């Protein structure tokens, strides 16, 4: 262990006994940096920028859907909006946000000086802006961005213009970035833990990321395969997904969801990790059932590879297929429920306070569980057939993606902001941010359960009159939610410029290494000599 650390220290060449970075200044510092904290910050800022872009697209969608009829955009552009909103939010906003957390926290939490492959880490990040630009550029090529949905089902993809090709290349780049990031995380966690930091002593956040990284390595190449086959079907005369040439359009869906289902756990597992750090800290009580949390996370990850066809109940599978995927899917409720019970038991008889990070964690707990309930409804194949591709599904996945992953990311930023910057954010404004997000989120998405049950299909720019009320409420909520996020930006900028000094151990109940062994702000190189963990 120490040999690895020594070698790494020498590899960086020279003394770094202080807080300052070395090498270039200005912009080139950020281009050339190999420091996990710099890279983590860039991931987080990039993710926030993409969150804003994807958010504007969501507002275009909601503005068009405010009233029946076509008012603001034409159907082609509407489809481009739904497609790009999905791709940008999933690959540009949520995933990079949690990679940002991983970069910042994993070395600090396991007592390492940096990530294992520092230069590859730089590359993993710098691929992202190019991928993001390709996605956005697709709007400006002939034919515009693809209007196929983020799932990019064949053979509709064959009809799209050049924007489809740009999107395919962007997906390739995003996949490369994710795989490199994952290799880095796995290597760091397995090789660079401080003496005494056994795997089963690691903070749960590191565990969830270790498992997520394996999921990424296993599933991203599958997506790359699917979009590559789409590319060759489009341009090189292959017929993977073209029945007329002996292919099968449904094959695309199988491949896509074999990636796509693990993908939703790639998004939510790190969020579980963040919540598992925040809840014990503000309950002033250790995490309940640590070992069972690790096992539950691993079981969810394994199960995630055998449930993909529950996204495809309507393609017409044999009855045995329908039943197998239904049973496998409902099984996921078991480890997930265990996690929720563990979190509740963590809070039980604690000494709770409700600072902003805790509020977001509780918001997560409440709304993610609601998303779990609608997931249980959707898992039943016969009921799913009534709800598939309706707004019920839209409501379901926004409960787990927005209230699950995004709320947790906000909670995480508030939680670690004092450690990252040495400054405190404005607690009152933070609480405002939480309550506004919470209320507007529910106004936006709760009513979509109703329009979905009543039969409103997703991805339509115009709708029958019976859905009008729900859509109006939803659109009002969406604009409120979107505007509330500007408050978040303001809080962060205000704290960066004039936040009060934060304590080394800002939160009374926080007990991982970054709080107990490092000052605030954390030094540029976290642990030059590894701490000894007992």
């Amino acid at each position, binding site marked *: 262990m120490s040999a690895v650390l020594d070698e790494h220290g020498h590899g960086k060449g020279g003394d770094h006994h202080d807080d300052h970075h070395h090498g270039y200044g200005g912009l080139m510092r950020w281009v050339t940096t190999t420091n996990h904290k710099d890279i983590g910050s860039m991931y987080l800022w990039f993710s926030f920028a993409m969150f804003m872009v994807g958010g504007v697209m969501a507002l275009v969608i909601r503005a068009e859907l405010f009233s029946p*009829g*076509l008012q603001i955009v*034409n*159907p082609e552009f509407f*489809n481009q909006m739904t497609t790009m909103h999905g791709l940008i939010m999933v690959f540009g906003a949520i995933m990079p946000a949690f990679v940002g957390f991983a970069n910042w926290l994993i070395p600090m939490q396991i007592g390492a000086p940096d990530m294992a492959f520092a230069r590859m880490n730089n590359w993993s990040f710098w691929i992202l802006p190019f991928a993001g630009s390709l996605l956005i550029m697709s709007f400006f090529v002939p034919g515009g961005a693809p209007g*196929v949905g983020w799932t990019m*089902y064949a*053979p*509709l993809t*064959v009809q799209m213009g050049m924007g489809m090709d740009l999107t395919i290349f962007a997906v390739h780049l995003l996949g490369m970035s994710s795989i490199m990031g994952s290799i880095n995380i796995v290597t760091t966690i397995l090789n660079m833990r401080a003496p005494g930091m056994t795997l089963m002593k690691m903070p749960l956040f590191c565990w969830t990321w270790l498992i997520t990284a394996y999921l990424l390595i296993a599933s991203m190449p599958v997506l790359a395969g699917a979009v590559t086959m789409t590319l060759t079907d489009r341009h090189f005369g292959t017929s993977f997904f*073209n*029945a*007329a040439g002996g292919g099968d359009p*449904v094959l695309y869906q199988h491949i896509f969801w074999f990636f796509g289902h693990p993908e939703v756990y790639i998004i939510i597992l790190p969020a579980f990790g963040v919540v598992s750090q925040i809840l014990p800290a503000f309950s*002033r*009580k250790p995490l*309940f*059932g640590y070992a*069972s949390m690790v096992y539950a996370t691993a079981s969810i990850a394994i199960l995630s590879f055998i449930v993909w066809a529950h996204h495809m109940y309507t*393609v*017409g599978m*044999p*009855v045995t297929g329908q039943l197998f995927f*239904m049973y496998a899917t*409902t*099984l996921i*409720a*078991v480890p997930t429920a265990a996690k929720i*019970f563990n979190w509740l038991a963590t809070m039980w*008889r*604690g*000494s*709770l*306070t409700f600072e902003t990070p805790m509020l977001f964690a509780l918001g997560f707990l*409440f709304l993610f*569980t609601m998303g779990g309930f609608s997931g*249980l*409804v959707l898992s*039943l194949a*016969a*009921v799913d*057939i*009534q709800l*598939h*591709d309706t707004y019920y599904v839209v409501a379901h996945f926004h409960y787990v993606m927005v209230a699950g992953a995004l709320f947790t990311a906000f909670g995480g930023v508030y939680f670690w902001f004092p450690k990252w910057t040495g400054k405190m954010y404005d607690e009152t404004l933070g609480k405002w941010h939480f*309550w506004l997000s919470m*209320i507007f989120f529910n106004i936006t998405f709760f009513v979509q359960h*109703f329009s979905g*049950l*009543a*039969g409103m*299909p997703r991805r*339509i720019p*115009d*709708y029958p*009159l019976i859905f*009008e009320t729900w859509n*109006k*409420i939803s659109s*009002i909520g969406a604009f409120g939610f979107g505007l509330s996020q500007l408050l978040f930006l303001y809080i962060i900028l205000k704290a960066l410029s004039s936040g009060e000094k934060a304590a080394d151990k800002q939160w009374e109940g926080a007990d991982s290494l970054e709080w107990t062994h490092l000052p605030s702000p954390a030094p540029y190189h976290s642990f030059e000599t590894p701490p000894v963990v007992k």
Partner: protein
Amino acid sequence: MQHFSARKFGRWALAAGIFALVAAGSAQALEWNLPPAATKIAEDVHSLHEYVMAVIVVIFVAVFGVMFYSVFAHRKSKGHKPANFHENTTVEIIWTVIPLLILVVIAWPATKAVIAQKDTSNSELTIKATGYQWKWGYDYLKGEGEGISFVSQLKTPRDQIEGKADKGENYLREVDNELVVPVGKKVRILTTAADVIHSWGLQAFAVKQDAIPGFIRDAHFRADKIGVYRGGCVELCGKEHGFMPIVVRVVSAEDYTKWVDGEKKKLAALADDPTKTYSLDELKARGEKVYASNCVACHQATGKGAPPAFPPLDGSKVVAGPKADQIALVLNGKTGTAMAAFGKQLNDTEIAAAITFTRNSWGNKTGEAIQPAEVKSLRK
């Protein structure tokens, strides 16, 4: 504490206010549940949904009861001191087993519903539904009415969609030719598609079956109530995805027989003689109608299209070029684009008329009348 409740009340009042305001602003009653079931299977599925929702409400109360109790009782501000327990194997086993048992209890009715939904045997009427961009084609393949075949598409006028006219009661859920089926008979729907994946969805029957190009899938229903049922395409299929509704009219056995007779007579009367020669004006007039129902969504009424995905016909090189090329393009479509192979959907006279119309409209002035026989000779 009191302060907190007041704030909370304020929030709810605000939400309720927004809700009331918006609800008052829209004319329609609120639809917030699955539409009324018209088949036994749909009824079973709805009860299954209600059953699961009941289970969920119980879990909801239990889980969040614990959470909110803890939030109120175990707060530091009330001087609650933290306990230090962090493990209890018995409890952990119990709360793993309980969800498992709940799932087993749900699994039984869920399995029965899937098996019933998948049993398409012994149908009395078989109808093929073909998804096109963006309309449905129906062919009665087996049973009473065999041989009937028509295309069903959106009847809502463009003016209503663009806000130039008031929206009708069945806005976006009305079609020119409804699918008519007899009450109480088991109907098997075969789905397929000509271009991209569509999905034939009708909640009142608990049917949603993807229509996949090159493959045939099936679903079934036995409607037990006379009435009109409305649904639509539920798989993104391109720009007009939101505009290809499905309307099924369930009628009594006698009315169905009458409808079949009427359809057969209409079909015989409508059958165009592909050897007949028409005048330019006749073809243009007929062609305008064909164009309006088949071409206008992409190429637009102005003939300007929506480039680059949907090229203009006004001034187009293909339209001004040799007629054989244009006929072949319309018959066979163009792979890799939304241009469908209309040879499968339209007869020779309709294609001849539509092509004549495009070659003699807007800025196009070829003066040529394309005769059905020319189309017929170019069919492969």
